[in-house]
């Protein structure tokens, strides 16, 4: 293993972490501004020009807050739980290609961190499932019955929608006949964007990931703070910031994933000649999807918990199974098209 390989690997990882964390900060800003404009008001516009320093102000506030650990809380797990929740969100993007290969400093560098992992999708589903642990442990470690109930509800919601999510992943896998994310993107280059072939799959994926990240209108576990409690009620300061970080980073991650699986990823006009356009196209698609997520939050009221579970089990899961069935039938009927 040469040194250049390690350096390349470390630089890519650091860049991605930096992108995700700055992205988290300014996603909160984007969300507040967009929600405000949809509600016919200004968003934050006092901290810095156009309120651009608002995330900095929020970060400083959270750093200076008192870190309170309840007396009978399980201290080790209490401190570990937010960490367990945020790390899967940060590493999920390791298999996603941001572009083709570029030539820098005499090396061919492919713009994806873990290279071409041939089980990329399996990696993504596996990592997504780990963050469920963080939430249930946060609820448990708080030594608070409301936090416990909130944590259990959130966990139940997340594992229910994971089924529909995994089945929604199967559509692109079948169409591209490979589990590697690079392979899926290049298949979209050959065949066309998968959203054309999988409209139901796209909608299932979108809704299931929104429920996975506890995002409105599926944010009952989060909103319970207003009603009784949520799983992060006993958290303050930086630990709470880590939970918020999880939610917004996952929002970015699922937008990137949705763009990669259904909207062609880094593909677009002239991306072969100018490889730097790859991340730009992916960025545009990601921003569009994030805007749609924020738009949905601005429009829809929260779904009641039992209806949320009904929706996941009785509507999304059968629809996802039907989607897999339909995709399989079409692939068998037109084998040459999808080779």
């Amino acid at each position, binding site marked *: 293993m040469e040194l250049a390989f390690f350096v390349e690997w470390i630089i890519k990882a650091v860049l991605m972490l930096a992108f995700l964390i700055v992205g988290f900060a300014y996603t909160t800003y984007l969300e507040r501004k*967009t929600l*405000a*404009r*949809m*509600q*016919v*008001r*200004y968003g934050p*516009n006092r901290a810095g020009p156009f309120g651009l320093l608002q995330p900095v102000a929020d970060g400083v506030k959270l750093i200076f807050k008192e870190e309170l650990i309840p007396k009978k809380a399980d201290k080790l797990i209490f401190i570990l739980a937010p960490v367990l929740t945020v790390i899967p969100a940060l590493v999920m993007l390791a298999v996603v290609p941001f572009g083709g290969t570029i030539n820098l400093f005499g090396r061919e560098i492919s713009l994806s961190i873990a290279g071409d992992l041939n089980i990329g999708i399996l990696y993504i589903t596996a990592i997504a499932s780990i963050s469920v642990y963080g939430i249930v442990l946060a609820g448990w470690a708080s030594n608070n019955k409301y936090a416990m109930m909130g944590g259990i509800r959130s966990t139940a919601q997340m594992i229910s929608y994971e089924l529909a999510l995994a089945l929604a992943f199967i559509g692109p896998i079948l169409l591209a006949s490979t589990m590697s994310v690079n392979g899926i993107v290049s298949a979209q280059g050959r065949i066309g964007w998968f959203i054309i072939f999988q409209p139901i799959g796209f909608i299932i994926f979108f809704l299931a990931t929104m429920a996975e990240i506890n995002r409105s209108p599926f944010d009952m576990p989060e909103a319970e703070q207003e009603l009784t409690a949520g799983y992060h009620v006993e958290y303050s300061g930086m630990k709470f910031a880590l939970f918020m970080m999880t939610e917004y980073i996952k929002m970015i991650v699922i937008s990137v994933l949705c763009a990669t699986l259904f909207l062609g990823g880094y593909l677009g006009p002239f991306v072969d000649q100018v490889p730097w356009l790859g991340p730009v196209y992916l960025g545009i698609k990601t921003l569009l999807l994030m805007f749609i997520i924020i*738009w*949905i939050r*601005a*429009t*829809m009221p929260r779904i009641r918990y039992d209806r949320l579970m009904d929706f996941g089990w009785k509507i999304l899961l059968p629809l996802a199974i039907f989607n897999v069935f339909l995709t399989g039938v079409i692939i068998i009927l037109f084998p040459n098209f999808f080779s």
Partner: protein
Amino acid sequence: MFVKGIATGMYTTFRHLFRKPVTTQYPEQKRTVRRRFKGRHSLHRYENGLEKCIGCSLCAAACPADAIFVESAENTDEQRYSPGERYASTYEINMLRCIFCGYCEDACPTEAIILGDNYELSFTDRREALYTKEMLLLPVHESAQITPQKVEPGVFNRSVPVMQDPDD
């Protein structure tokens, strides 16, 4: 099944994205107050400079929050503060007790105390909330004299002038 409703809702929020926000950016843009707005109190004077307040403390009696404190003293012709026999030698309003209801303004027989338009009242110490007569009294016109005035005897005997109904 709910798709049409969701789509209509999302279209509505999207349209709102392009409307001008209705927020007034407060310190830079201030909204004009309504006509009968009840703000900071002020003690008015007549054209000739004499104070309207005759120290009858009807305002203190009317105040539901017990915010006004009035002490009166005798007017003499050498040192005349207001027409009539009495004037308010001590007049204090505790702004922390005041509820800005306007009953003192309704109770005053001479239209001396009026609630104006100023709502930006802040203090850093609780003692600064006691507004004294000097803070409340309006300054005098250039054409008139400052109180206490020295006047001829017998001119200003009547405390409460003939007045019309207020229009504001």
